């Protein structure tokens, strides 16, 4: 009798312990570019691929919170297995996140800053992935890739935790979205361009480097302490950044996506043509490498920032190729993606795997040729030949037989 008396209130109480929102396509408010104003604003969007709503886990990404990562810059991780590396650097492996929402008119609104940041990051990963799938990325590539949200990462204990940055970190096969500290603009985790840029890095790793957690090319191309022949490794660093920028532009259409979050970057990463920044040549490349050799103590710092500027040359060239008649940016990016792996011996993956010293990969001709060959249609091939030929002083006819008779553009020469 007593049991019967207690059961109804107990059952009612248990019913009040609410359930999480159900997975599947749902309406969610996130920070997104408003096409009307060109500014970031809170917008209601459809999120399609979530499998667990509070954990914000789905096909596009898997967030991991509260991880502690300790990289020791003095320690050599050579020869370690991937599992041993993970165990060595992940002091705290982290945990699934649990975003909180309020529901109004069928829309889920993240109810605190981190929930908004996480939900927005997931949506941006979903959008970046959808764009890449539409350009030809394999459906199984980068599925549910983890992203460490606000990890406590130290490289050197004396310098404290890394902040105000985002990265693709192949050694953990994960994205890293660091905490904000000094940056007061749109948080990097909520910047669609930044997320798409990092997704671009991951695509490059998955396709060109075959998803290697510890790509061997850099060691192969720099096997002596001073890296006496740095062409391959420097080119790899710069094209990765440039191609990542063009992925960001393809997803967002935002030419100054970095400035939303990092104002001090100014116009250095702008993709609009700038004659003093975006015209280059193989001869200038050789001269710059030789000049940098004269200051070996500044080598790493110099190329650390210079590779972004060289990358911007590639991104700007690809952007302008997409503006040529008969093609568009989407088709240019399809050519770029095809150049990663789909074009056989001309592909960047083949070059990276077979180039013993990095000299071939480290030439503008090889990279430009791979991209042009990746073009599926003649107008796109012509556009690429014209713009790349102009920006890097290359002979269009040497890039692809389809470009016979195509004159380089006249922006630089």
């Amino acid at each position, binding site marked *: 009798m007593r049991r019967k008396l207690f059961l109804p209130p107990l059952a*009612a*109480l*248990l019913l*009040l*312990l*609410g*359930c*999480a929102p159900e997975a599947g396509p749902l309406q969610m*408010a996130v*920070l997104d570019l408003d096409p009307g*104003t*060109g*500014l*970031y*604003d*809170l917008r209601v969007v459809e999120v399609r691929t979530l499998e667990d709503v*509070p954990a914000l886990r789905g096909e596009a990404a898997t967030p*991991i*919170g*509260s991880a502690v990562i300790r990289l020791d810059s003095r320690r050599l991780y050579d020869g370690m297995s991937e599992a041993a590396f993970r165990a060595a650097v992940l002091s705290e492996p*982290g*945990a*699934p*996140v*649990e*975003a*909180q929402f*309020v*529901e*109004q008119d069928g829309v889920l*609104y*993240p*109810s*605190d*800053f*981190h*929930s*908004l940041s*996480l939900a927005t990051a997931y949506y941006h990963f979903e959008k970046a992935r959808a764009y890449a799938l539409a350009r030809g990325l394999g459906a199984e590539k980068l599925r549910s890739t983890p992203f460490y*949200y*606000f990890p406590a990462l130290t490289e050197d204990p004396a310098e404290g935790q890394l902040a105000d940055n985002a990265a693709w970190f192949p050694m953990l096969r994960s994205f890293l979205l660091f905490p*904000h500290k000094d*940056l*007061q*603009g*749109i*948080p990097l985790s*909520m910047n669609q361009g930044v997320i798409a840029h990092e997704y671009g890095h991951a695509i490059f790793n998955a396709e060109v480097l075959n998803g290697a957690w510890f790509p061997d090319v850099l060691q192969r191309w720099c096997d002596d302490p001073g890296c006496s022949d740095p062409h391959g490794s420097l080119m790899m660093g710069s094209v990765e950044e440039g191609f990542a920028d063009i992925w960001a532009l393809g997803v967002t259409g935002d030419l*100054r996506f970095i*400035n*939303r979050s990092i*104002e001090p970057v100014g116009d250095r990463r702008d993709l609009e043509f700038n004659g003093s920044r975006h015209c280059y040549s193989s001869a200038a490349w050789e001269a710059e490498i030789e000049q940098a050799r004269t200051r070996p103590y500044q080598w790493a710092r110099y190329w650390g920032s210079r590779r972004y500027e060289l990358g911007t040359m590639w991104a700007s060239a690809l952007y302008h190729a997409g503006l040529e008649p008969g093609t568009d940016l989407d088709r240019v990016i399809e050519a770029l993606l095809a150049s990663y792996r789909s074009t056989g011996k001309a592909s960047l993956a083949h070059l990276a795997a077979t180039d013993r010293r990095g000299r071939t990969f480290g030439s503008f001709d090889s990279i430009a040729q791979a991209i042009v060959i990746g073009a599926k249609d003649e107008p796109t091939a012509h556009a690429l030949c014209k713009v790349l030929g102009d920006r890097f002083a290359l002979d269009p006819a040497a890039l692809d037989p389809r470009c016979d008779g195509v004159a380089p553009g006249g922006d630089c020469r």
Partner: protein
Amino acid sequence: MNHKSLYLLLAILSLPSTGLALGSPSNEGRVSSFAAAPGGQPYGRQIHAETSRREEPRDRAASGAGLSLEAILALVFQDDPQGSSYTRDSGWGLRLGWDMSRQLGLGSLPLRFQPELSWTQSSEEQGTAAVIVSRRLDSFRLVGRLGWRLGEPSQGFRLIPFVSAGPAATLSSVRYDIADPVGRGRASPSSEDAVSELQWGAAYGAGLAFGALAESGAGLTGRLELLRIHRGYVQDLALSVGLGFRL
């Protein structure tokens, strides 16, 4: 606490202890002693029995209305969206209780039952200059508090360990202030949005209540309480201190 709420609280706490004349169980036995003795027992023996009952120590909480009002200060540990254990926040609120032990016939027992209506408010604001998210949680709870009085019932000071459980509703109000740096200098560089939802759930916990009561049953009450509050699928943990008056 805003001024209006403070004045209201002070006004309630300064009310004279009127007792509200809800009756007192300590009078009930004496009335029956004037009726016919059951079972034909001699009246003298009956009177003796009633006299000895009168001499039992009287529970002070049995007097008065049994209504109490407490101000609450709380440390709220909220589930952290980042997956770590919690984020910490402070809150404040009010609690209204009614000691129903006498109405339930528990007057002579150490067992105490008290339904309570509580409200606490906590708020947080986080973000960068460009993206700020502010959230306010107003938590309302209707819980039953079941306690066990320690010590002698006649003592003015009492300690009551208790457990409590009941339904809860939390009004979550969220505001978003967005100002994209690229929009600086434009006519409307920033935007504000606000949403809210009443989220149902449950609350349960345990604690230690204390009271310093006068003969009339009025006096100071307070508690230290640990409470788990569910709002939707999210759980908060509140460590609260309460201090107030009982009438």
